[in-house]
């Protein structure tokens, strides 16, 4: 029993804190079932700097900045900050784009998927099925010898650039908010107080760095190693969100229809999250984990986040992103199929020689 406690306490505590933070931030003004969403919030920042023109989703989200800097600060204190990089950066950029497009078709990263489940949104269960199937597909090339090659030690400057960009973004957004686009209606207009959001995210970022919480890693480790540590964090988030919503709202309505910032197209909810699951396994972590690793000095993860930004811009500029009204008006199906083909090609062509 002591061993189980010792193994699980930190990741479960982190999951509970992430879930509680999500409910808290929604009560403070963030959109419903979106207290935390890495994909949505990176997309909002992408809009705030004018990379896409969807007026309802533009805002400099301090949560993203706080997660990266929370991980950065704790890793420096614990002497775990280590600038590394050089592991197939262009492939990672491309995978990042696909993961983001998939997430915006579903309307949420794996973290928001879990938060939506805790909020009673049954569409997110369909998303979860797609996510798990995507991960199971991605595990196959991993077992066959898939590799994006090793990362190498980098200079301190290289590792510092991404956290520094986050600091600059935050400071400029406070000193000169007029430089950024900011939604006056829609999800982008709904947000908690900047400083409250930043502090919550700093704490969550530090906890995630210490516990290595990862949505994709949870399923992957359970399947590949029968190791259930990370998935315990995943479940803890759902429990915390369920209980938190019950406390705040007094009741929970489980349904497909009428859920906040969600659509009911099951096929695309499934396919969107399948792209996210498959892409995340190839990348070695979900979007939340990429933010944390980037804070720790991992420049491959920083490049992946640049891919997320590009993916968000593409998703909104080409009508691929869904909304509460349904899937986008652009060539969504074609892009989903093309993305699946790209993931298959990346999977096959990166299986090391002699392993096939």
């Amino acid at each position, binding site marked *: 029993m002591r061993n189980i406690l010792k193994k699980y306490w930190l990741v479960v505590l982190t999951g509970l804190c992430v879930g509680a933070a999500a409910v808290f931030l929604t009560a403070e003004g963030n959109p419903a079932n979106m207290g935390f969403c890495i994909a949505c919030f990176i997309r909002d920042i992408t809009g705030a700097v004018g990379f896409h023109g969807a007026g309802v989703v533009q805002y400099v989200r301090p949560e993203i900045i706080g997660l990266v800097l929370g991980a950065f600060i704790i890793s420096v204190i614990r002497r775990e900050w280590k600038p590394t990089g050089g592991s197939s950066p262009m492939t990672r950029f491309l995978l990042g784009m696909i993961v983001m497009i998939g997430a915006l078709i579903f309307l949420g990263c794996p973290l928001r998927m879990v938060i939506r489940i805790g909020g009673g949104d049954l569409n997110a269960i369909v998303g979860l099925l797609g996510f798990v199937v995507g991960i199971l597909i991605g595990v196959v090339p991993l077992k066959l010898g*898939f590799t994006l090659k090793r990362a190498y030690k980098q200079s301190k400057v290289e590792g510092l650039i991404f956290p520094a960009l986050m600091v600059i973004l935050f400071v400029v957004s406070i000193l000169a908010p007029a430089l950024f686009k900011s939604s006056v209606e829609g999800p982008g207009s709904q947000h908690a107080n900047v400083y409250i959001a930043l502090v919550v995210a700093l704490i969550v970022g530090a906890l995630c760095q*210490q516990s290595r919480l990862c949505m994709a890693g949870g399923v992957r480790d359970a399947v590949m190693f029968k190791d259930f540590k990370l998935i315990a964090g995943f479940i803890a988030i759902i429990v915390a969100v369920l209980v938190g919503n019950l406390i705040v709202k007094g009741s929970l309505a489980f349904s497909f229809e009428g859920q906040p910032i969600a659509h009911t197209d099951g096929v695309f909810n499934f396919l969107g999250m399948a792209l996210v699951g498959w892409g995340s396994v190839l990348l*070695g972590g979900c979007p939340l984990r990429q933010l944390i*690793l980037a804070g720790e000095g991992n420049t491959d993860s920083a490049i992946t986040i640049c891919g997320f930004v590009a993916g968000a811009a593409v998703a909104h500029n080409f009508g691929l992103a869904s909304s509460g009204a349904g899937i986008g008006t652009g060539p969504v199906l074609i892009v989903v199929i093309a993305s699946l083909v790209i993931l298959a090609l990346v999977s096959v062509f990166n299986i090391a020689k002699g392993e096939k």
Partner: protein
Amino acid sequence: MDYIATFYTHLSAMRTHKELKKRGADARLAPVPRKLSSSCGTCVFYTADAPMLECMDSDYEAVYGAQGENYTRLSYKE
């Protein structure tokens, strides 16, 4: 004696795991213990009479001797 080998890639862990098993060591793949790394890579736990460094794939990072949860680094490759 128990040992843990850590790696720069998952593939490298798989290759070493295979090699160790071929040479008769009792080996298994697992996530790297948090105490050893903040990254989320794959490691190999193995039991053998010696660290068997000759089995390590070229992308291995370090080999530790393990006594419970106390680890002593025996070898490191940057």
